[in-house]
């Protein structure tokens, strides 16, 4: 049964992560220094974007709910760096990171978060449903686990039409205890579909610690039950995530079927913008922040000679400037006209035929 995580247990969890999961960043045969710099830039952009979102929410520029991708940047960026144009991703309720990682436009994102007309969803979706379909980002969802079968269907299209694209299905540890998680992985395994199930195991389903929600706290172990490969990677290490996804994508593109990847990390921020985190000891977060994925990537860029301090400073400034530009764009953008209320409910032809919205 559920009990409050003690400081001792948290220290043990940090020690276990260091011992079993933490992997030093290392050069990958699949990545050039320019790729690493681009990955850093995108991670930094996500960090600046979601840091700004929290303040904008407090100032009431952003309505409704917003869930931050801070602390998870290495996962979306590492995974998307292993994808090509034409590949798809599905997302979670923390969709800002996935959208940026897949090449989404921060201006249209911020406009959507502020509910403006030029937003990705024309002001109909907001943070929880942000989608950049033109980039292959099939949308964030407010229901945990619900994108699992959608990713399977996207992979079914690829297989049916003989396309060699893959779909990455981002999902959280909370999703692994939904029935549809099981149905989806089993179906993809049975049909050998080109889909990569990438579990962002941040160890907390809002206030529920993962190890208290399951009998076996390893997500990757479950792959055995479906007869597919299952791997665990350091979710604070963008290069490790990249390599795991790249390997899975190569397998998927050549008919090898799905892979389950567990990217283990820790959500050292609140569940959403206004979470007071009363359910856990604040010291937990401090202990986990030593693994900050962006700091580690910066350190590796310097240490490997892939970038120097001046480049990093410039990249940081550029990220901040892009977010400031996105905020200015969104604030100046028009609200959707009220007569767009019904737009998009059905296809235009049907709407006209039925006179919907007239």
């Amino acid at each position, binding site marked *: 049964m559920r009990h409050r995580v003690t400081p001792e247990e948290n220290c043990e969890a940090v020690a276990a992560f260091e011992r079993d999961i933490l992997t030093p960043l290392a050069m990958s045969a699949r990545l050039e220094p320019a790729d690493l710099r681009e990955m850093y830039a995108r991670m930094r952009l996500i960090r600046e974007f979601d840091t700004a979102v929290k303040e904008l929410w407090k100032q009431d520029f952003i309505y409704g709910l917003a869930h931050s991708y801070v602390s998870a940047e290495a996962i979306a960026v590492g995974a998307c760096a292993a994808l090509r144009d034409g590949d*798809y991703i*599905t997302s979670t309720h923390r969709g800002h990171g996935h959208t940026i990682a897949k090449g989404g436009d921060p201006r249209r994102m911020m406009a959507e978060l502020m509910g403006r007309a030029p*937003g*990705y*969803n*024309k*002001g*109909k*979706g907001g943070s929880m*449903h942000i*989608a950049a*379909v*033109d980039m292959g980002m*099939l*949308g964030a*969802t*407010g*229901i945990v686990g*619900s994108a*699992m*079968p*959608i*990713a*399977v*269907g*996207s*992979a*079914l*299209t*690829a*297989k*049916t*039409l003989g396309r060699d694209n893959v*779909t990455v299905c981002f999902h959280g540890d909370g999703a692994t205890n939904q*029935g*549809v998680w099981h*149905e*989806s992985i*089993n*179906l993809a395994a*049975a*049909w050998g579909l080109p889909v990569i199930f990438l579990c962002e195991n941040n160890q907390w389903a809002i206030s529920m610690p993962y190890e208290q929600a399951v009998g076996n706290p390893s997500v990757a172990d479950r792959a055995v039950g479906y007869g597919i490969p299952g791997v665990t990677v350091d979710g604070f290490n963008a290069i490790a995530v990249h390599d795991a996804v790249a390997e899975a994508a190569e397998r998927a593109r050549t008919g090898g079927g799905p892979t389950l990847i567990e990217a283990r990390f820790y959500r050292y921020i609140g569940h959403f913008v206004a979470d007071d985190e009363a359910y856990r000891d604040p010291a937990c977060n401090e202990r986990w922040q030593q693994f900050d994925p962006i700091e580690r990537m910066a350190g590796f860029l310097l240490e490997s000679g892939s970038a120097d301090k001046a480049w990093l400073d410039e990249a940081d400034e550029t990220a901040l400037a892009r977010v400031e530009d996105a905020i200015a764009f969104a604030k100046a953008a028009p609200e959707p006209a009220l007569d767009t209320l019904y*737009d*998009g*409910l*059905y*296809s235009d*032809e*049907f709407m006209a*035929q*039925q006179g919907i919205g007239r």
Partner: protein
Amino acid sequence: MTATPTAEVQTRRLTVKQAINQTLREEMQRDPTIIILGCDVGVRGNPFGVTKGLYEEFGAGRVLDTPISEAAIVGSSLGAAATGLRPVAEILFSDWITIGMDQLVNQIAKIRYMFGGAISVPLVIRAPVGAGGGQAAQHSQSFENWFSAVPGLQVVMPSTPADVKGLLRTAIRSDDPVLFFEHKRGYEIKGQVPVEEYTIPFGLADVARNGSDVTIVAVSIMRHKALSAAEALAAEGVDCEVIDPRTIYPFDYDTVLASLQKTGRLVVVHEANRRSNIGGEIVSQVVERAFELLSAPPRIVAGLDVPMPYNRSLEALVIPDEARIRQAVLTVVGR
């Protein structure tokens, strides 16, 4: 063509089941992006024989037997529809659509809208509805009102072979999600079906019988019971007009109101249980739009508000029949 078959059109006598099968085959021949998926749809050809022969013709890559995983069937159909296929998914009994409800209600119905129109969902979900056959509480239900209540979905439930052919073709070609409900006691209903290719637009009711005294709006196979009741009532001097809406959403109120101009009296018949159902919605729309046309309070003949019992006699109490339709008609004409 969109009208009901006329004399000069070449027709063939088919069952509802054969009309579905033929339409699926013709559409799959025309469009390689159409796939069929569901439990037992492939090698077995569906327990009612609806998809018989399609696996042999189109192969395992387009007629996909699935595990018993309704949420994954429905959800993967959405993912496929969003990325370039036109899936026709089947739920073996519509009762089990409940297992895929999140995907249907929260994803399929809403994705186009909540993504600002960026995604189309050309998806058909076929499922047998209805009772009569001792299949008891979990294999007998009709849930059309659940889905017609959700903006973003379309709900179609025809019951003649010609309507099935035209409406299934429209459903498959629609860029929006369609729930296509077939009555499991209606698969063997026979009728003349035009040989040519045609579609019937959604939101166009069929006047199955012209009459001047009472308008009976009858859903799915209740159309046939209403027609049979109307013949008997004609002998008693009551002339009924029978309207089959064919689609629940969109719903053709214009045809119903035009009929009420003549009759002023309304009886709505559906097999789904009465509580919070489409009968109430139809009556409320009519009252709001054209109260002045009504010369008597409308009546609703519907399934009773209990789970479907197994026993034959108890089951018969629940399902509307000709006697209950007759009684309602006599009530509205004041006899």
